[in-house]
C-alpha cells in the first residue's frame, strides 16, 4: 500500500516536470548539506587537508552561484584517525545535522567503522580518500563508493611489470604495518604468483623513528629489486638510506608517496633517479603541465580559496579532482536530490573527464562497478621530473 502511494507520488512528481523538486533530508530549494570526516588532529593529520580542500572547493562553487541555484554547505569534522570518533561524527551528521550524504572521508580503518552504518541508513558514503578494494562492492554495500585506484590494483601493476621485465628479480619489500601496506603487498605477491621471488619483506610501524634497521636487513637479503610500500616520511628515509648503505636495487615506489617535493627532494634527487612509480593525476609540481588548462584552473582555485595548499602534498591537491567529480554528480542530479538518485548518478559516470586526470584516464562507474578510477600509468623519475612511459594501464 505504502509502496504504491510512493510510486504514485513519484509518478506525479515526474509528471509535473521540472517544477517540483524531490528532496531527501539535507537538501532543499536553497541548500545542499553534506559532511566530510578527516583527521585534522592526531597521527594522520597530514591527510586532513582533504577536508580543507573540499570545503574550499565548494566555497568557490558557492561564489559562482552554487549548484542549480542551491548553496552547498559542507561540514568538515575531525576524527583524529580514530574509528570510534568517525562513527560518532557520521551519526551526528546523519541523524542530528541531517546531511544529504558524506563524502571524501580519509582512512581505511575509520571508514570501515561506518561502512555498515551508512548502508543500513541508506546514506551515500561517496568518493572516499582511501584505496582499499572493499569500497567497490555494490552488491553488499550499495551506498559506499571509493574514488582513487585501489592499492591492490596498483600493487598488481608493479608485479606484472617485474614479471615481464625482470623475471629473475630478487625482491625486497618494505611495508607499513597497517591495512595500506598489507593491501599493496598482498596483491603484489598474489600477482607475482611465485612467492619465492620475494627474498625479504620487512615491516615498520608508524611509531618508529627511522627505518634504517629495516634497510640493512633488506640489503643483507641480497634483493636487487626494492618495493617501497611506505608513507611519505618513511619512503623518503628509505630511499636516502638505501643510498647511504650502498644498496642499489631497482626501486618501485607506491603512488601515495611519489610527490617530488615531499618525498624525493628530502630523500635526494640523485638518489631518487630511476625510481619507478605510477600515477593517474598530473602533479602540479611537474613542469610538463605548467601551462595545462587544468593546472591553470587549479592554480586559480588554490590562490583564491586554498592558499595554504602545498603542491608537494598529494592530499592537498588530489581532492580537487574528487571535489570536481562530486560537483558534477550534484549538478547531474538536478532537482531530484534524493539519496537514491545521488547514488544512481554517481554510479552512471561514463568517460567523465575530471580535471588533473592524465590523458586517457577517465572516471567510469556503473551499477556493478563502484570503482571510479581504474587506470594508471607507469612512470620513471629522471633526476628532475617524473616521466610517463608505456600505455595507460587499465586495472580491475
Amino acid at each position: 500500500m505504502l509502496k504504491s502511494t510512493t510510486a504514485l507520488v513519484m509518478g506525479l512528481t515526474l509528471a509535473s516536470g521540472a517544477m517540483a523538486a524531490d528532496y531527501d533530508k539535507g537538501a532543499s530549494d536553497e541548500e545542499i548539506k553534506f559532511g566530510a570526516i578527516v583527521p585534522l588532529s592526531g597521527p594522520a593529520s597530514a591527510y586532513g587537508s582533504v577536508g580543507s580542500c573540499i570545503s574550499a572547493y565548494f566555497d568557490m562553487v558557492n561564489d559562482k552561484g552554487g549548484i542549480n541555484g542551491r548553496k552547498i554547505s559542507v561540514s568538515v569534522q575531525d576524527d583524529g584517525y580514530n574509528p570510534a570518533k568517525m562513527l560518532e561524527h557520521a551519526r551526528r551528521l546523519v541523524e542530528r545535522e541531517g546531511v544529504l550524504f558524506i563524502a571524501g572521508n580519509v582512512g581505511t580503518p575509520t571508514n570501515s567503522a561506518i561502512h555498515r552504518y551508512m548502508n543500513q541508513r541508506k546514506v551515500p558514503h561517496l568518493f572516499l580518500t582511501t584505496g582499499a578494494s572493499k569500497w567497490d562492492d555494490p552488491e553488499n554495500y550499495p551506498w559506499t563508493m571509493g574514488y582513487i585506484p585501489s592499492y591492490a590494483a596498483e600493487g598488481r601493476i608493479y608485479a606484472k611489470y617485474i614479471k615481464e621485465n625482470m623475471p629473475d628479480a630478487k625482491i625486497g619489500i618494505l611495508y607499513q604495518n597497517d591495512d595500506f601496506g598489507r593491501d599493496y603487498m598482498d596483491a603484489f605477491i598474489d600477482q607475482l604468483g611465485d612467492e619465492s621471488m620475494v627474498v625479504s619483506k620487512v615491516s615498520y610501524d608508524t611509531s618508529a623513528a627511522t627505518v634504517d634497521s629495516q634497510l640493512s636487513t633488506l640489503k643483507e637479503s641480497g634483493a636487487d629489486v626494492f618495493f617501497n610500500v611506505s608513507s611519505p616520511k618513511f619512503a623518503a628515509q628509505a630511499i636516502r638510506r638505501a643510498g647511504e648503505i650502498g644498496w642499489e636495487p631497482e626501486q618501485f615506489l607506491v603512488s601515495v608517496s611519489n610527490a617530488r617535493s615531499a618525498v624525493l627532494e628530502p630523500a635526494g634527487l640523485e638518489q631518487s633517479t630511476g625510481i619507478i612509480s605510477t600515477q593517474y593525476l598530473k602533479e602540479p609540481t611537474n613542469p610538463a603541465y605548467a601551462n595545462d588548462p587544468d593546472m591553470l584552473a587549479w592554480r586559480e582555485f588554490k590562490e583564491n580559496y586554498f592558499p595554504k595548499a602545498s603542491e608537494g602534498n598529494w592530499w592537498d591537491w588530489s581532492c580537487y579532482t574528487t571535489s570536481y567529480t562530486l560537483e558534477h554528480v550534484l549538478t547531474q542530479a538536478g532537482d531530484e536530490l534524493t539519496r537514491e538518485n545521488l547514488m544512481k548518478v554517481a554510479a552512471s559516470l561514463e568517460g567523465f573527464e575530471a580535471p588533473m586526470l592524465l590523458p586517457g584516464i577517465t572516471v567510469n562507474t556503473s551499477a556493478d562497478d563502484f570503482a571510479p578510477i581504474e587506470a594508471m600509468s607507469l612512470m620513471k623519475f629522471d633526476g628532475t621530473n617524473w616521466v610517463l612511459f608505456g600505455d595507460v594501464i587499465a586495472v580491475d
Partner: protein
Amino acid sequence: MAMHDLDMTHVNPETRKLTKSGLPLARLGYGGAALALVAATGVLEGYELFLASSILSYAIAAMGLNVLMGYNGQISLGHGAFFAIGAYGAAICIDRFAVPFALTPIIAGVVGMGAGWLIGKPALKLEGVYLALATFGLAIATPTVLRSDLFSEWTGGVQGLFLLINPAPEWTGLDLDQSIYVAVVLYFLIFAFVTLRLVRGLNGKAWIATRDNPIAARAMGFDVTRAKTRAFVFSVLACSVGGALSAVAVQFVAPDSFPFFLSISLFTAVVVGGLCSPLVGPLLGASFIVMVPNLTEEIWQGGSWAVYGAFIIVIMAIQPRGLAGMLAWVRAKVTATSNND
C-alpha cells in the same frame, strides 16, 4: 545528572559526620539518578543513545582508573591497553563464539583481569614515574601488538573485527541502540555500586593509607602490596569492561581504535573529572573527553588539541579536584545562599 557525591569525605574527614546523617537522602538521590538513566532509554534517540553509551563506557573505565590513581595514588598512562583488551575480548567472543553481546563484558573483564594481574605483578613494584613509564610504554605498544601477524587469526590483524550485534528479544520492544544502551547502563550501575562500596569500605581505607604513607599503612597492619594489587586489578577490570561496552557500541574494533592517545584520554578523564570523586568525577571526565574535542574543533579547526590542552591546564589551575570539585563548590555556594534566605 543529579548524583550526590559523597566521597570527597575521604579527602576531608571533617565532613564525614555530616554526610553520614545525610545518607538516606543521598540514597534517594542515587536511586533517582539510576532511574533517570534507565528512563532515558525511551526518551533519547539513535545518535544520543550511542553518545550516551560511549560516555558511560568511558565513565566505567574512568571509575576504575580513579580508584587506582585517586585513591591509591599510582600513575598510569597506559590503561588504554586494557580498554583494548576488553574491546578485543568482546569482539572475539561475538565473532568466534556468537556470545550474546550483553554477556561479553563479563568474559572481557575476566580476560582483562588475568592480563592485569600478569602485568601488575611485576609492574607494581615500580612507583611514581617508573610505573607511569611502564604503562606509557604499554600504551604505545598496543596498536602494534594488535596489528601483529602473531595474533591476526583472532584479532583480524590490521583489518580489525566487525561485531554483529543482535538487538534484545522482540518482546522487550527495544531497538539496537536501545538494547546496547540498556546493557551499558546496567553495567554502569553495577560498577557505580561496587566502586562506592569498595572505596567506602576497608579496601578504600587501605588504598588511601597506602597512598598517603605506605610505611605508616604497613605499621597500621595494612597489606600494602595487596592493596596496590587490588586497586590495579579493579582498575583493569573496569577498563576492560568499559572497552568491551565501547566496542559493542561502535560495533567495530581495529588497532587504530586504541592509539596511545586513548590512554592519555582516560588519564585526562580521571584527573579533569576529579580525583577521588568516585561517580561524578568519572562521569564528568568521560563527558569531557568525548564532547570537548568536538567543541575545541569548532573553536580552532586544525589546532584543536592546542585548545584542548589549554582547557585541561585551565581546569587544573581553577580546581585541582577537577570538574567534580567545581560542581561541589557551586553546590556549596548554592546551599549557603539558600540557607541564608
